[in-house]
């Protein structure tokens, strides 16, 4: 291998095409990375970023196209081939074995691990890497004990320990709190300077792209729509390229009189599946016609809290009142019947049943309703008719109501879920990341629907990672960090920066601001 200088092309892809049934995820993509550069790839959900990276890492085989590494044409049969050439990857979804220790994860598949594992030597070497980047981590801990940030460190250490020269990072910041994000950005800048690690950095978060990358490639629906030096880009221009039209938040924020409290949460605490505290001692109330926004990065306890309120998880302590009645011990079904509607964050795994038709999916909220089920027998005609009506009302793009839910696109599926929940006329709506993964049009539709419900007098608990969404919709905002509410701020007057700082756990900073 010849000496590599900063600026040399180290990885090049030509005409990469990958087709999945019904769509082209990557459409003749040309792409290159130079030594010492951070090359950002930008695109909205489903644009094909992960697909492209998987191809460069040998995980997915392209239908067409060629890949060159350090100038040589390669044909990856498996990630092992890519790893051998010095490519490492930090995946969008964590790729660690939770039952194994940190060291075992780092050593797994290492080409020079040796038949008998030398844990002591490895520990020393990994320790040096840790020191170089200021990481502190217990190498013998089981991965399931670690926090999200620590897990990511492990992935980076794993790639570096394998001698990665090219490090692919797929949305590394999505699960991180702001301070962890900062730390990560520092680390990768250090890498490009010192270690000649080359890091294409993939995200759909514009500020991060602007602050850290030298070049940026924008993908839209599998095609490259722009490639430019970051210095020449602005947030607006990138957003335009990304979504192909101007972002117009056209929200009709209605003037609604806030009424009596519907939901009162008193000192509630919740544990997660692993028996750790997820939410601690939280109290608040949601009133009629009010949108109460919980702002926070995923993994700070919002999901367990939402589940506890929806009756899907036991509260370890505290009390929940709904319309002044104690519902702490009620099951989720009893809560549905009382008028609490829950929109879960995972539309495909939780919010719908992929193999069921839309009619049967609608039944998820109607099977307990005696108007649709008599003597245990389902009134098929009636539920079908209702499905048809809702499909029209919510503009769900589907040929007929017998289509399986798995065949609906993300936006349309979310519409269907909203239609199902809202059609029950809930008094309280718990909406957990309701616009996650949706494109702008669908996002706007969902947000407007929430506002309509607010106008109709329902209380809404909105959980979101998207600061803009929270700011735009909420009457009151509770930034949540590590299982606690940092504060509860009035929606109209709160400042973006204050909320952002609180979300990141910076109480001090917020006070100053």
């Amino acid at each position, binding site marked *: 291998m010849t000496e590599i200088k900063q600026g040399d092309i180290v990885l090049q892809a030509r005409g990469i095409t990958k087709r999945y049934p019904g769509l082209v995820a990557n459409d003749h993509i040309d792409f290159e990375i130079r030594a010492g550069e951070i090359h950002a790839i930008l695109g909205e959900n489903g644009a094909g970023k992960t697909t492209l990276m998987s191809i460069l890492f040998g995980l997915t085989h392209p239908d067409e196209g060629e890949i060159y590494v350090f100038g040589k044409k390669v044909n990856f049969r498996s990630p092992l081939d890519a790893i051998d050439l010095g490519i490492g990857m930090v995946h969008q979804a964590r790729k660690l074995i939770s039952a194994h220790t940190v060291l075992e994860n780092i050593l797994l598949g290492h080409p020079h691990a040796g038949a008998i594992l030398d844990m002591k030597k490895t520990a020393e070497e990994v320790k040096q890497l840790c020191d170089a980047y200021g990481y502190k981590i217990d190498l013998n801990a089981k991965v399931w004990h670690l926090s999200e940030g620590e897990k990511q460190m492990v992935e980076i250490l794993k790639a570096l320990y394998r001698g990665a020269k090219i490090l692919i990072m797929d949305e590394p910041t999505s699960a991180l709190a702001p301070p962890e994000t900062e730390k990560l950005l520092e680390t990768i800048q250090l890498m490009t300077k010192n270690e000649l690690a080359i890091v294409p950095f993939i995200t759909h978060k514009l500020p991060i792209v602007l602050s850290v990358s030298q070049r940026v490639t924008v993908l839209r629906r599998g095609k490259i729509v722009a490639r430019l030096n970051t210095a020449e880009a602005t947030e607006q221009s990138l957003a335009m390229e990304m979504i192909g039209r101007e972002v117009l938040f056209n929200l009709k924020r209605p003037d609604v009189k806030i009424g009596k409290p519907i939901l009162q949460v008193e000192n509630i605490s919740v544990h997660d599946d692993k028996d750790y505290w997820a939410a601690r001692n939280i109290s608040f109330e949601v009133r009629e016609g009010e949108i109460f926004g919980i702002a926070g990065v995923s993994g700070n306890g919002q999901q367990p809290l939402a589940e506890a309120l*929806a*009756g*899907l998880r036991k509260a370890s302590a505290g009390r929940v009142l709904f319309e002044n009645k104690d519902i702490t011990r009620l*099951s*989720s*079904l009893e*809560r*549905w019947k009382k008028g609490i509607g*829950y929109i*879960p964050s*995972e539309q495909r*795994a*939780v*919010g*719908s*049943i*992929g*193999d*069921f038709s839309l009619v*049967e999916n609608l*039944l*998820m*909220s109607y*099977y*307990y309703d005696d108007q649709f*089920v008599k003597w*245990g*027998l*389902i009134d*098929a005609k009636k539920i079908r008719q209702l499905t048809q009506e809702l499909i029209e009302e919510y503009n769900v793009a589907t040929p007929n109501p017998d289509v*399986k839910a*798995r*065949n609906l696109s993300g936006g349309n599926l979310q519409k269907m879920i909203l239609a199902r929940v809202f059609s029950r006329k809930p008094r309280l709506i718990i909406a957990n990341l309701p616009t996650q993964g949706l494109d702008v049009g669908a996002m706007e539709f969902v947000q407007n629907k929430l506002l309509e419900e607010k106008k109709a007098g329902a209380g809404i608990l909105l959980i979101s990672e998207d600061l803009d969404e929270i700011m735009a919709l909420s009457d009151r905002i509770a930034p949540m960090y590590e299982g606690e509410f940092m504060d509860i701020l009035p929606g109209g007057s709160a400042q973006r920066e204050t909320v952002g700082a609180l979300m990141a756990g910076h109480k001090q900073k917020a006070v100053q601001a």
Partner: protein
Amino acid sequence: MKLAGYTLKLEKKASFSGLEAILISVVAIAFALFLVGFIFLQAGVNPAEGYKAIFTYAFANSFGVPLTINRAVFILLSSFAFIVPIRAGLWNIGMAGQLYFGALSAFGVAYALGARVSGAVLSPWVVIPLMIVGAIVGGGLIGAIPGVLKGRFNTNEIVVTMMLNFIGYWVVAHMIKEGGPFMGSGGEGEGYKLPASIQAPVVSGVSVLTLAIALILAVLLYVLFTRTRFGYQIRAFGHSPAASRYAGISPFKIAFLTFVIGGALAGLAGYHYFGTVPNLNQIPKNYGDFGDMAFYGIICGLISQGNPLAAIPLALLFGGLTSGGRYVQGKLHLSYGIDYALLGVLMIVLVAFQFFFRYRFVLKKES
């Protein structure tokens, strides 16, 4: 793979039609029979003749047909015991244990009514329904064990039901052997015989009462899955436990009820075979063979894709294969074990053919 400008590719299927399912099953069964044909050949028997003997005995011989039907009812009930939990995504392979306990409990009812010592003291109109209830309760209670453990602790139901099969096997031995309470009059390692007065009705060698019950159950279960709230809940849970929990369906309730129902159905199979089939009317020495036969219910349930109506012809086929298989072994003086070999090959081939439910081969022209 490339063939003259075409590529043969494997493609994942999103779904398959009922016709496709039937076609695949038929081809699978035919392929298994083809493989077993080699055993016939090796034993010096023309496979065509071997199969002719099996099928004519099973389906066209006046002595074989009642045997086939009695066994088919047993296999059908066993397959229902598998189908109900599997529609909820739960595996019941404990039909054997459940049917042992169902039978024990049915004979326990008769025993309590004095059937063992002094002959029936009550009319069959009372004893038979009570024995049926006993079988349902006994099987259901044993089914409840994996149900509760699954629902409460998420304990692997496959292992638990498998362990219960062995526990049931030995408990039966305890009850019928060496002075056990249900010991037959001679102490020959078999259960006591039901007095003739409380034996279930038999027409031309077929236990018609349990046959009717099994057929009615097939229809009821079909309606349960297609039309009812409970069936919907079971299916929803089977497709997505997370989504159905979100919709307010209690995982405990589903695991518990499907296993109780499954166990009860298996218990009924136990009553059917040991309590109503002519010349048995007792728990026989070789009750373990019938426990093994209940595994046909799994194959039946799998091929029928959980459809209780589709299970009927399959149960009939397997009932015929067990009776005809043993017949042909004796008739053609084949070495013992050929009928079990047929079952084993069939099972493995069917597993292999499940592949075609999920994948298809496509030919694409090179561009």
